């Protein structure tokens, strides 16, 4: 009896100390990665990063064209993806309650959400680059849009479902048509949640590299022509990090630091928006 008790107590403690140990290990790795990025990134950070274009090895340079290229690609994806994602999410939450179609769309959206981004890149290559016969910014923006939409769709759907039904009934009882009720009442109630989804989706696509490799390719020089290959931050980081030159690798770290900071700020901002809305 006594040994049984001792054995059970031992397993209990063992199990929970292991749990504590692996959690510390997980936090340690997170800290290690952030520390690495900060250490190498800050060392390479200076003003010419934003003033000069990507250099050839041995020359002084920055990432100006890559920043602008990324801004164009990501901006375009947000511009096109936001209305599509929000509308699709609205359809699921408002117009297809309890219907099979809504379930099917939700299910396949979840699949698309986790589909490998390189496969999305292949898709963009097959239906944009291949028929046009050249790499282009449009193809990259197209790929990013497809990665962007499922995240927005999902959060919009979830946030609209949290809006209490009584609010809808009140609006309808006042004689508002369904579309007006959605636009003026439920959207307003779920605005913070929808914004969170957009911010998270933006964070997700800002670091995406794989789908850009064979859609926008890359450009060493200044260009804002979306019909041609243009520079982008993730690709510049990838190429410079893989290069054998220390100065280019340093630039890659600076780019990585900027990307990570941008994404962390977005993620924390999204959390903040949601929490503040939850409190009010």
């Amino acid at each position, binding site marked *: 009896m006594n040994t049984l008790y001792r054995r059970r107590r031992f397993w*209990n403690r063992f*199990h*929970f100390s292991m*749990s*504590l140990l*692996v*959690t510390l290990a*997980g*936090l340690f790795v*997170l800290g290690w*990665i952030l520390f*690495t*990025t900060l250490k190498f990134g800050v060392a390479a950070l200076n003003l010419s990063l934003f003033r000069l274009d990507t250099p050839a090895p041995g020359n002084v340079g920055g990432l100006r064209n890559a920043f602008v290229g990324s801004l164009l690609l990501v901006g375009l994806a947000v511009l096109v993806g936001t209305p599509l*994602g929000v*509308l*699709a999410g*609205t*359809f*699921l939450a*408002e117009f*297809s309650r309890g219907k099979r*179609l809504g379930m099917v*769309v939700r299910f*396949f959206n*979840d*699949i*698309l959400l*986790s*589909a*490998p*981004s*390189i*496969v*999305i890149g*292949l*898709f963009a290559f*097959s*239906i944009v680059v291949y028929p046009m016969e050249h*790499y282009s910014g449009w193809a990259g923006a197209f790929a990013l849009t*497809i990665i962007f*939409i499922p995240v927005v769709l999902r959060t919009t759907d979830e946030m609209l479902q949290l809006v209490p039904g009584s609010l809808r009934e009140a609006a309808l009882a006042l004689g508002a048509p*369904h*579309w007006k009720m*959605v636009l003026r009442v439920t959207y307003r109630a779920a605005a913070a949640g929808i914004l969170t989804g957009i911010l998270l989706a933006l*964070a997700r696509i800002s*670091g995406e590299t*794989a789908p850009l*490799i064979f859609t926008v*390719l890359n450009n060493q020089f200044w260009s804002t022509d979306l019909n041609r290959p243009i520079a982008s931050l*993730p690709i510049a*980081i*990838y190429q410079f*990090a893989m290069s054998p030159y220390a100065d280019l690798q340093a630039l890659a*770290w600076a780019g*990585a630091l900027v*990307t*990570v900071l941008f994404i*962390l700020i977005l*993620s924390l901002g999204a*959390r903040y928006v949601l929490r503040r809305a939850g409190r009010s």
Partner: protein
Amino acid sequence: MFRNLARFAAFSVLLVLLGVAVTLFWRSWPTFHHFGWSFLWTARWDPGRELFGGWIPIAGTLISSAIALLVAVPVAYGVALFVTNLAPAWLGRPVGSAIELLAAIPSIVFGMWGLFVFAPWFAKLEPWITAHVGTLPAIGIFFRGPPMGIGMLTAGLVLAVMVLPFIASIMRDVFTVVPPMLRESAYALGATSWEVQRHVVLAYTRSAVLGGIFLGLGRALGETMAVTFVIGNAHQLSASLLKPGNSIAALLANEFAEATTPLHQSSLLALGFLLFAMTLIILIGARLLLWRLENAQGKSGL
């Protein structure tokens, strides 16, 4: 009008998924037609002579993902347990959020960390691994090799770090939906916390936990940039996990933009199609398993 607009947007999601499957299959058809089923298990990959077989990247994808899961699942379980069961609320939530932040870091940063920091450190560890683990019977042959730092094992470990937050956050979510009454009755019978966790919580959430693991596997299979940095990109497959290898995603990232002949391009697209098919099956399985718990929840709630 508004309703139809919304319906169109929702349909476009289905259209995209269908479009991915159809276009990838269509564009990889020349390869499947040319090489037949043997494309799946032939190891040659010779763009110069136009001979293509997908076995090495396919096996590499499966092996690196398997290593990732072997490492990530127990760790994710421990983290989820800590956050839901062990830590007080003021500590649990920030720790959970911190682990989830790992998921927000872009893949390419994991790759750079893996290549410049983790791999050199791991290379110093590898002679020790070869000397001590490599001499063991049965599993020894997996751990002998040159101490290069990059290779299949490194790729698996970096992947493990990447899929950890996904699996951990799902496990955390499903552990919290266990009705408190079930836990309390087990405690009332005198069970220790570990016994409650093992016989009540895990039993109740088994299918959803498995779904979370599948979801992590789906991520690991398709992960590209981090793997490309550290797997070594060598077209070879050896018993030793310390040697460089390749995965479908890494091969695509490396070769696709330079593929010149139609057959080469089609073969790479065929690998992409296989990767898509693999992840699709696994993700569908994962979603179905996760839905089972949600449905059980819904029914018990009524």
